[in-house]
């Protein structure tokens, strides 16, 4: 087969169009550079492909998906397109004794089309953990370095929240928060009794018109994708301004395979498979930003072996694929009898929590290091498939009594989800599987995973906290149903929280890190990795906002280097 060569050399080639890739495309094109943006999935049309405002009964499968396969889990039919735990023809492997799950999105905008819009800043101590408690490593940057970029991102995308002066949860630039739902007023009251912090949440959803985008219309369906772009997605908020500059070339259906290195140790091109034709093509550029998602980015580097870089590109330190982290996740719930007596009312709100519990025990010694925040929700949402499984199993029977019980209990449950910081350990990493390739011929990833004691103690604390809150609110606690020997205290399998980061980490020294503080490879000066892969730690803050802030910072650095003529030929 002939390798097709695109003659043009772009200033920058960005691989991946999600939170990181979209941000890079916007900042770089607006800064005057030409950008080729590669995306492994297709583009889409929101009004055709989003299922916003669709009722379950508008779909033959009612949201359960073909064969009922989406009945459980995150990939139901309503979800914004092309995000899934398994992609046909694109396998990954969990090593024996490990279980890791990898949620991937093959679509313009990547996982920003379905993410929870939770936009939390890392705090000062989150960047300096080793100095604080001796575990893990410090970042080569501090909160002060990133804060101006948090400001830029929040100002541009729009985030609601309130100024609270909580050391573990720095304030940002906020739009006003929406009013609390009933479930949130109940939990807030209980938290006040227990001296647990419960404050308005911080979500990238517009409560006022912002930068030409209309305000939220409160249908609670952000995960389906928003036709009015009133929440943040890279596809609707970052990529349109980049396109407007006329300097963006979007290439969809492009599965990056290998970064090609020249004699001067610089990347000259990316080889990719054009999925439509299954042909190999190349894009040439002066600089490359890898933003394919943490594990996909590590995979691309590890698959880019050459005589100059026999262990994979930018991997002289051997850290690529290592240091893999997810968030510690453990869920529980409660039944709240007072909600049985609530009159029917519109409970929808935004597509996510209006209030949350930031980490509140930062001022004392705990049984474990680091912290967690808590997301919660429930109440009178749109009924969906699977909603009545637990009640049916508990109540059993059949007939009018079952029917009335379901109505009586509708909207009376609140679920709690702890999201905590994991300390990286040597048993958690990904590598190239020696045998398996995907349908494009690209060697697949193999994951290794093991929680350490600290995470399990944290999950225990989550369960205890949620019991205390539910009981303080007069409810009946429902512990995690997923507790077994492999999941003590209901701790989720690695990858399940979809906060995987750390696989191409930054650091001051080239021996123990792959990137410098600007996400630039120590070994390869025109290569940047700006997605979650660059993280040194995985604070109890959902990574997306930080990914965008770090990408914005790296992109400005790259622009500056270009101006100085350091971008290369």
């Amino acid at each position, binding site marked *: 087969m002939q390798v097709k060569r695109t003659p043009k050399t772009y200033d920058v080639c960005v691989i991946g169009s999600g939170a990181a890739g979209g941000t890079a495309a916007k900042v770089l094109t607006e800064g005057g550079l030409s950008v080729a943006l590669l995306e492994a999935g297709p583009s889409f049309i*929101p*009004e*055709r492909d989003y299922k916003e*405002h669709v*009722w*379950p*009964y*508008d779909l*033959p*499968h*009612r949201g*359960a998906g*073909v*064969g*009922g*396969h989406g009945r459980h889990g995150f990939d139901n039919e309503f979800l914004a397109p092309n995000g899934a735990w398994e992609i046909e023809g694109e396998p990954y492997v969990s090593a024996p004794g490990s279980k890791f799950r990898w949620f991937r999105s093959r679509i313009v905008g990547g996982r920003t089309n379905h993410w929870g819009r939770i936009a939390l800043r890392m705090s000062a101590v989150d960047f300096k953990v080793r100095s604080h408690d001796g575990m893990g490593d410090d970042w080569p940057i501090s909160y002060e370095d990133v804060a101006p970029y948090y400001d830029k991102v929040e100002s541009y995308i729009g985030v609601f929240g309130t100024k609270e002066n909580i050391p573990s949860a720095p304030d940002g630039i906020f739009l006003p928060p*929406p*009013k609390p*739902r*009933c479930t949130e*007023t109940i939990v807030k009251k209980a938290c006040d009794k227990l001296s647990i912090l419960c404050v308005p949440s911080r979500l990238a959803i517009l409560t006022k*018109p912002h930068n*030409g*985008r*209309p*305000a939220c*219309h*409160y*249908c609670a369906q952000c995960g389906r994708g928003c*036709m*009015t*772009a009133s929440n943040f997605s890279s596809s609707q908020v970052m990529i349109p301004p980049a396109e407007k500059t006329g300097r963006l070339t979007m290439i969809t259906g492009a599965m990056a395979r290998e970064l090609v290195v020249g004699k001067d140790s610089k990347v000259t091109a990316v080889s990719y498979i054009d999925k439509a034709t299954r042909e190999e093509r190349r894009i040439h550029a002066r600089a490359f930003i890898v933003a394919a998602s943490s594990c996909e980015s590590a995979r691309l580097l590890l698959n880019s072996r050459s005589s100059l870089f026999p262990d994979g590109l930018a991997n002289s330190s051997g850290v690529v694929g290592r240091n893999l982290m997810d968030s510690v996740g453990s869920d529980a719930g409660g039944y709240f009898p*007072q*909600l049985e007596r*609530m009159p*029917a009312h*519109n*409970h*929808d*709100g935004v597509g996510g929590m209006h209030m949350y519990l930031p980490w509140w025990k930062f001022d004392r010694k705990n049984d474990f290091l680091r912290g967690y925040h808590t997301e919660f929700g429930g109440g*009178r949402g*749109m*009924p*969906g*498939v699977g*909603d*009545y499984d637990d*009640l*049916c*199993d508990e109540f*059993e*029977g*059949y*007939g*009018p009594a*079952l*029917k009335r019980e*379901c109505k009586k209990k*509708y*909207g009376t449950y609140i679920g709690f989800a702890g999201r905590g910081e994991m300390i990286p350990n040597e048993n958690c990493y990904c590598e190239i599987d020696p045998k398996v390739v995907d349908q494009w011929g690209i060697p697949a990833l193999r994951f290794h995973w093991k929680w350490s004691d600290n995470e399990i103690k944290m999950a225990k604390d989550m369960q205890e906290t949620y019991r205390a809150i539910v009981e303080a609110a007069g409810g009946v606690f429902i512990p995690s149903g997923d507790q077994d020997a492999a999941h003590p205290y209901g701790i989720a399998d690695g990858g399940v929280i979809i906060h995987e980061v750390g696989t191409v980490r930054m650091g001051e020294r080239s021996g123990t890190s792959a990137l410098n503080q600007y996400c630039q490879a120590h070994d390869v000066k025109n290569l940047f990795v700006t997605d979650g892969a660059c993280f040194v730690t995985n604070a109890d803050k959902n990574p997306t906002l930080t990914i965008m802030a770090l990408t914005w910072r790296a992109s400005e650095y790259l622009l500056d280097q270009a101006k100085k003529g350091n971008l290369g030929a």
Partner: protein
Amino acid sequence: MAISRRDILKSLTATAVTGSVLRVIRLEAAEYAHRMIKAEKAAADTQAYTPKFFSPHAYKTLQSLCGTIIPADDEAKGAVEAGAPEFIDLLTSENSEYQLSLGGGLMWVDNTCIDRYGKPYLDCAADQQKEMLDSIAYRKNAKKDPSLGQGIEFFSFLRELTADGFFTSEIGIEYLGYIGNTFVSEFPGCPPVPET
């Protein structure tokens, strides 16, 4: 030329809508789109349903069981009117595990009825049917009689799918009193919560 649903939806996504006048148009367009979807559905619903997986006899049994699990009462219609059997048949036609557990489960019910009463479930008298279902509607019965285990598993799964079919229907959603899936310009917050 009639305005298509697509045109309406497109108008919803017009960019840079910030003025209050445009906002009203947006809301009206949304409601209009909802009405059109409903009208399309109503027109399609008039034809009789041909099961995709279940045999005519098995499908009739399925309908009967769905109707017994969530029956019509004076407050609302039941699972059959809500389309639960069609929904279950569709999923089963696409899933070999469902084919075993539901297809086989329905056979188990008939086999057991034949053993007990000499005829398949549908031909049994009302009190026999009730006796049959009462024996498989509760897990604790398997402790006394382990031979009910498979029937209990089947019924438990069918109960979940019937609840899915009912509560995701227009009838079921109205019965629960879910209010939402609309466009509102401000979220109203919580009405007063009754004290425990």
